């Protein structure tokens, strides 16, 4: 569909830039940062082209590139984007330059290594989101680990060594079993599809043995749930986020965690539909626990960075909740919320980073009255905070509302307690904001707390613009994800309803139940959740034709 | 009356086990080494008995190879033992414990 290999360009550009950076004299830190920034902006430009040229009406993969890679084992280089990967590609392309910018001026040691690591990381992250071959995906997925390990381990805080190792081992442990499941899928594909393959699109045609499917589902779900992280698999997160340098925390929160939620959408739902539907309540329950638990624990933190880190557990809980609600609103909301969380929590980490650069403390008790000292920071920080607590008008609200609406329609019992997160997020975020920004000036060296430099303002402005843009006019994003989400859910429900292990012709499309939706907990219906048609059929302005 | 071949095998097994016991129990490197030689000889007996049983010469040829290899091992082994003795004035294996963990 396109002659220019845009996606490959996005994958190769960072690596090429890394090669260039490797050749730059290590003492010329400015040049190194400049080279890195140029590369990342080029990637962002490529992503912009992809975004603009993306055909929102199509649910199909676009910008597809395929080439044989290891043909003897059925592994191909197969990349493409659809409405599910596009937002995350964009998020990555936007957040990486900001992460680099956050280091510029803040990190002066081992700059060359830093730039190279960040560029490699960008390539791997983008690859994770565009790969359409399971092995290719896994390669990118794991390739993220090493640069991230070094990012935390080399430029991190005082407890960085342990945090980096914990991050690495914990997330690797999950992925390990996913690899096994990937291979099992491949082996299964031989009998049914004629040839063994790792191609995701082909594997979606697989009818798995009902005895096997839950295990594969579990293996994938474990890996992804650790990455997300779903409660109670989250404990690597506070350490890693807290100890990582600002750039690392930003990438971790903004992009890395989304690998997990994206993985659920991209792989778990279409490949293991029956189990996904069957175990959705369990995952939703965990997600809700995460929402509340993460919020409560955040509230109790005395370390600013740890507070922000734990808030991710809460936010990602909501995203997971939406994913497994399996209704179009919830899934689209989740997808949007992935972007939103990237922007807002990324912004919060940038905020913490800016503060840390000045005071070298993460303890809330060491702060106070910063708004007086940094009047330029205060409103920007507030906007980011408000985005994070999902104030209407900001991006967070749109995503959160969609998730809640979509979840409530199919599983009220999970949506209602999740509202507690709405309260908790305000509790801990405003608590933090007050402790840091308000009150009499209480920092140890007020003179060292200069207001934002131009570079630092440049960190926040893109975020602020996106926060309001998505908050007020999310249509460009929602429109692009709609067709793909719809197609995905149709596939999931069709596959979940179809008798497994009957590799006969496609089963008849399940008839949509027509019972009017009502305020009763229907649990999770086997078919599509509370009928979409009925939902839209109410006459009048709010329902689209 | 002839001796059953199993008796030879049994004798071989016994000698082999004796050799094993020697390796496990003795600390003198030389004696340990002799115990290994005992094990090799037990194997040889087994080979020859099997050769007789199958009327196949391969078993006897095998002994030839074992003897050749044993000879080389003796040369190498004794060279190493002597070298160690020159350095430490002992062939007690328990005192050779710089490397562990």
């Amino acid at each position, binding site marked *: 569909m396109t002659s220019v290999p845009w996606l490959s360009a996005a994958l190769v550009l960072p690596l090429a830039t890394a090669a260039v950076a490797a050749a730059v004299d290590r003492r010329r830190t400015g040049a190194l940062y400049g080279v890195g920034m140029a590369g990342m902006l080029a990637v962002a430009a490529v992503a912009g082209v992809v975004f603009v040229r993306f055909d929102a009406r199509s649910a199909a993969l676009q910008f597809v590139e395929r080439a044989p890679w290891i043909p003897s084992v059925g592994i191909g280089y197969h990349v493409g984007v659809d409405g599910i990967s596009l937002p995350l590609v964009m998020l990555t392309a936007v957040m990486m330059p900001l992460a680099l910018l956050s280091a510029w001026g803040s990190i002066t040691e081992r700059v060359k290594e830093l730039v190279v690591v960040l560029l490699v990381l960008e390539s791997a992250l983008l690859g994770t989101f565009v790969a359409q071959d399971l092995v290719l995906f896994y390669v990118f997925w794991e390739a993220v680990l090493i640069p991230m390990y070094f990012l935390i381990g080399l430029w991190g805080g005082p407890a960085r060594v342990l945090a980096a190792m914990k991050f690495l081992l914990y997330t690797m442990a999950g992925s390990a079993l996913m690899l096994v499941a990937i291979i099992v899928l491949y082996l299964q594909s031989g009998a049914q599809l004629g040839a063994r393959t790792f191609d995701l699109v082909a594997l979606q045609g697989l009818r798995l043995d009902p005895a096997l499917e839950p295990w594969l589902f579990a293996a994938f779900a474990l890996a992804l749930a650790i990455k997300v992280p779903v409660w109670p698999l989250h404990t690597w997160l506070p350490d890693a986020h807290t100890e990582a340098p600002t750039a690392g925390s930003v990438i971790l929160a903004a992009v890395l965690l989304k690998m997990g939620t994206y993985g659920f959408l991209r792989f778990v739902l279409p490949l293991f539909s029956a189990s996904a539907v069957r175990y959705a309540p369990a995952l939703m329950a965990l997600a809700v626990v995460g929402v509340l638990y993460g919020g409560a624990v955040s509230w109790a933190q005395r370390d600013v960075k740890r507070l922000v880190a734990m808030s991710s557990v809460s936010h990602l809980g909501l995203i997971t909740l939406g994913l497994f609600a399996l209704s179009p609103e919830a899934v689209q909301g989740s997808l949007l919320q992935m972007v939103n969380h990237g922007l807002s929590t990324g912004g919060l980490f940038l905020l913490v980073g800016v503060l840390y650069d000045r005071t070298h403390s993460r303890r809330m008790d060491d702060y106070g009255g910063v708004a007086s000292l940094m009047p330029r920071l205060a409103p920007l920080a507030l906007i980011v905070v408000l985005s994070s607590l999902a104030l209407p008008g900001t991006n967070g609200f749109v995503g959160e509302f969609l998730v809640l609406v979509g979840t409530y329609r199919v599983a009220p019992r999970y949506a209602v307690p999740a509202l507690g997160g709405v309260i908790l997020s305000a509790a801990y975020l405003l608590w933090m904001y007050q402790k840091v920004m308000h009150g009499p000036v209480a920092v140890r060296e007020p003179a060292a707390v200069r207001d934002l430099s131009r570079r630092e303002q440049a960190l926040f402005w893109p975020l602020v613009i996106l926060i309001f843009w998505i908050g007020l006019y999310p249509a460009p994003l*929602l429109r692009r994800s709609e067709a793909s989400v719809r197609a995905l859910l149709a596939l999931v429900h069709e596959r979940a309803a179809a008798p497994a292990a009957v590799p006969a012709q496609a089963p008849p499309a399940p008839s949509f139940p027509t019972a009017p939706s009502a305020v009763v907990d229907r649990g999770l219906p086997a078919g599509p959740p509370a009928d979409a048609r009925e939902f839209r059929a109410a006459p009048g302005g*709010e329902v689209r034709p | 009356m002839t001796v059953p071949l199993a008796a030879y095998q049994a004798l071989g097994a016994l000698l082999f086990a004796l050799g094993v016991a020697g390796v*496990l129990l003795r600390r003198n490197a030389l004696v340990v080494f002799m115990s290994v030689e005992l094990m090799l000889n037990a194997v040889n007996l087994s080979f020859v008995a099997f050769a007789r049983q199958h009327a196949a010469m391969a078993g006897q040829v095998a002994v030839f190879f074992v003897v050749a290899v044993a000879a080389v091992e003796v040369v190498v082994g004794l060279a190493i033992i002597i070298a160690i003795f020159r350095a430490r004035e002992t062939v007690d294996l328990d005192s050779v414990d710089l490397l562990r963990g």
Partner: protein
Amino acid sequence: MTLTLLVGLPLAGWLVLGLVGSRLPRPAVAAVGCASVGAAFAVAAALARDPAVAGVGLRETWFDWIVAGGLAVQAGAVYDRLSALMAQVVTGVGFLIHVYSAGYMAADPGYARYFAALNLFVAAMLILVLGSSLLVLFVGWELVGLCSYLLIGFWFQRDPAASAGRKAFLVNRIGDAGFLLGILVLVAAGGTLEIARMGEVAARLEPGVLTAITLLLFWGATGKSAQLPLYVWLPDAMEGPTPVSALIHAATMVTAGIYMIARLHPLYAAAPLTREVVALVGAVTAFFAATAALTEWDLKRVLAYSTISQLGYMFVAMGALAPPAGLLHLTTHAFFKATLFLAAGSVMHALGGTVDMRRLGGLAGPMRATFLAFAAGALALAGVPPFAGFVSKDLILEHAYAAFRAGGSVVPWLLGLLTAFVTAVYITRAAVFTFAPPAAHHGHPHEPPPSMAWPMAVLALLSAAGGVLGARAVGAPLVRSLEEYFGLPHPESPVGAWVAAAPVAASLAGIAAALLLYRGRRKVSLGVVGRLFARQWYVEALYEAAVVRPARAAAQLLAVLDVRGIDGAVMALAGAVGRAGAGLRRLQTGYVRSYAAVLLVGTVLALGYWVLR
């Protein structure tokens, strides 16, 4: 387009002040701030003449906001009689208070920030008022909350102000969670959030669902409109600048709950159970807050409790299916409570911010204009004819009585009557302590500058004469219009004359009692009851002990368990593997004989498996 202009004007003011305000000279800041709101008032007033307003209302669709799955929410505005009334109150009172602020805040370093936030508030309030969809209303609902947070904590350098702002946001958030849930139920069950289609939704939904929706939304209203049990933020909100208290925490924002119920009238009309709850909560709150005001020494907090109490009246009206009465009271309350706050602000302005009534007094002389304004407001509040409050409060109590006669509870009416008495007592007490001799202050009180005096005067006038909007004598134009709007009958005289007279009598009795009690005296003990009142019936203490502290403790416990328990298990697993590694190291003894034994173990196992199987 014009509705866009209406919202856009203050929004533009905010943008200008927010982005470049700190670089503008003060007069320019004040000019932008006041002009944007003034222009908005002009637009609102002009639009209200449009004939369409009397019909289905002016409609504007701005853009598709959230379109996903089966949900399609459009951002748009409706300008009908209800929103026109509210928009004019908001922009009108807002404009006056902006002008007042120009003088009141003249010396504050955060001048531009102040006006930016105030402009944003007006814009947000207009979004709330005009929003064509409940979700757009909710945006405004939350944004006014944000502005409230910003303005309560305007002097963020002071910890109490910052904390009060946070408390306001948080308590409101608790209400909003319920509100949001109500929206969720509504969208799931009704399929739409379009306000224009609520009638049809109400007709379609089962009563139980309707009750659930309306109760949940009302829960949100108790937060925003400071009713029991979520009133606790409003007294603290007095930490903000006084004009802010006047505009946000008296005249406009806190009435959003009443406005919302009026906006969703079809739903509430069809939910009698909810209405009963609304009326009861309103009545209990009205009485409760009035008693709290009775023993309060902080002038602004007296007014704050008074606001809570008066909002209670409005909810009584909404519960009695008399939204016109409630909205009338909303309007008159906006006038007289703003007057009272501005007068209080004037006192503070004159005395360097003193609000403790024990350190006031004797101001009637040096601050005559202020005193007169306060008196007008107080009389209106007390419900003395013919002041504005008399008309509206009377109407509410009449409707409450009518509702009782129609089979409802008697409690709202009885408590309302009782509250009328208490109201008169506390506001007289406040007036006496503040303005009557002896003077307990050490300052040199002076009248406020014209920029403050004029708005105060205008509002005082409205407090005195605002009753015409609802006075039967003049045909009650506003009430009629609203009754038409809501499709309600116009009861000529719903109840007997004694019912109408009773509140007046209660008020006058209250004033008399207060004069008797407090004139010339400061230390009046009400005994045990007084202590109960002074501690607001221990509601806050109860929250602190039963909610806040346990929640905080639970969070802290969870945080510890997170590290010790969940992460502890993970680390224990890792530690076990590590110890296994150390153990295996110890097995590597370095002795040849041990190694030979290990080899033999392996061999024996292999042999055993193969030979014996």
